[in-house]
């Protein structure tokens, strides 16, 4: 019935929405930033554990739509073990993938985040996918405050 939506709602997204990974409060977090999308009410708190400039652990709490939940869940998995610079590079590539105009998207560069490439066809939903990454960006820049997509 929802054949048209297969590119947007891939099975991996349903899976992460049902069972979000790293969905927990981190008591000894080095960084903690809240992300908020006032348009849809999505709200998340991102926690990072750092060792120098390497992210050793990432977790989150919050509520949002399937796209935003899957995006933050996948992100917390993929950034573990990455340096700040590597994570920022990945954010840039992810941003290009979800908002870029180019027909050619380098899906290999983003690994399993490629399941979120479908949002580029749904302008109203791009912010759902990028909220997690904007929050991470704020956390890496050590902005201890709320960030908003608006």
């Amino acid at each position, binding site marked *: *019935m*929802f054949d*048209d*939506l297969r590119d*947007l*709602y891939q099975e991996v997204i*349903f899976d992460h*929405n*049902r069972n979000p990974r790293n969905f927990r409060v981190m008591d000894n977090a080095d960084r903690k930033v809240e992300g908020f999308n006032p*348009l*849809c*009410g*999505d*709200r998340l708190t991102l926690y990072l554990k750092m060792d120098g400039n390497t992210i050793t652990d990432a977790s989150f709490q919050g*509520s*949002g*739509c*399937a*796209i*935003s939940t899957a995006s933050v869940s996948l992100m917390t998995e993929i950034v573990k073990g990455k340096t700040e610079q590597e994570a920022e590079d990945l954010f840039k590539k992810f941003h290009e993938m979800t908002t870029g105009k180019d027909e050619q998207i380098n899906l290999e560069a983003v690994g399993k985040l490629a399941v979120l490439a479908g949002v580029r066809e*749904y302008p*109203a*939903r791009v912010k*759902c996918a990028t909220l997690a990454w904007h929050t991470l960006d704020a956390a890496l820049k050590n902005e201890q405050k709320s960030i908003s997509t608006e």
Partner: protein
Amino acid sequence: MTNFPVEKIRADFPILAELIRNKPLVYLDNAASCQKPQAVIDSIVHLYSHDYANVHRGVHTLSVRSTDKFEGARTKVKDFINAASEKEIIFVRGATEAINLVAQTYGKANIKAGDEILITAMEHHSNIVPWQMLCEQTGAILKVAPINLQGELIYDEFEKLISDKTKLVSVVHMSNALGTINPVKDIIAAAHAKNIPVLLDGAQAIPHMAVDVQDLDCDFYVFSGHKLYAPSGIGVLYGKQALLEAMPPYQGGGDMIRKVTFEETEYNVLPYKFEAGTPNIADVVGLGAAIDYLNAIGMDKIAAYEAELLDYATEKAQQIKGLRIIGEAGHKGAILAFVLDRIHPHDIGTMLDSLGIAIRAGHHCAMPVMDFFEVPATARASFAMYNTKEEIDVLMKGIQSLIEVFG
């Protein structure tokens, strides 16, 4: 179903024949804005093709024709809400501008530090923020009457909040987020007992029921054209003549003056005192055409048909496991807001859109209502006179299917 000519009405709305994602459009976002009948579209095309010029100025033929149509529409609005005079009908951009106008003219002239403005917890942002701005400017205090879990005003609490300090009551006639229709006659009687004027935000109520401002005895009534099958960008402020006469003007400019020298300006009479600058002529004419269209059907018939639609949709929705209706007032207009277990309203909105169904997902410009019900957002199906039971079946089937897909 009563013998309501819904198929005939549908044929009058060209957009309803549109295919969305290769499926017939099921348009259930009428509380946000509703679609326009051919008669309204034609009225604008006809004006620009044959009768258009600026109003109230020229002696030439087209200016006279344009003015006649423009002022003719004012009379239609006056009759539609049964105002006592055309002087009480002020054209504005919409309900939002009307409330801002009252806040910045009546409010600034009459409300002082320590005074209170009373609203309810189910207001749209447009009936919250203008008062907060006024409070900031004057030092007045905004009081909010609470609602219960059915989404109804707790009337006793409302009455208790009316005090000697209350200088204005501003309440929504029908809630956009919940569908609740407020006991506005009781509210007005209670406020008037203490000589407090009442503004009714009629943005949602106006397309769903016959409104008689003299019977209601409200002091101000505001609504937008675009929710009344008329163009966007046009709306109405109704105010009792004595109140409007005593109010300072809103904006200065052409049309709102009688005589200007560099030393002083004499303001024009009502309603022009509040209509500075060239007005939105074509959309006023479109609003008049929408009112003609609705009068030919009959607002009471529309209300009865929509009540049947809402009952049908509510009954079907209650059968869906995991669906919770937000807004279960005893007296309600044709709005069905809901949430689903573990499925975010934005996912509901996107999935239904892929089936050609347009609903609204979000906070509906009523964030305090979302906070009260402890939901980040709701999905909202809002019905109009051109919707059918078959469309409600399509909606319910879509909801069932997306619940299955989410698992």
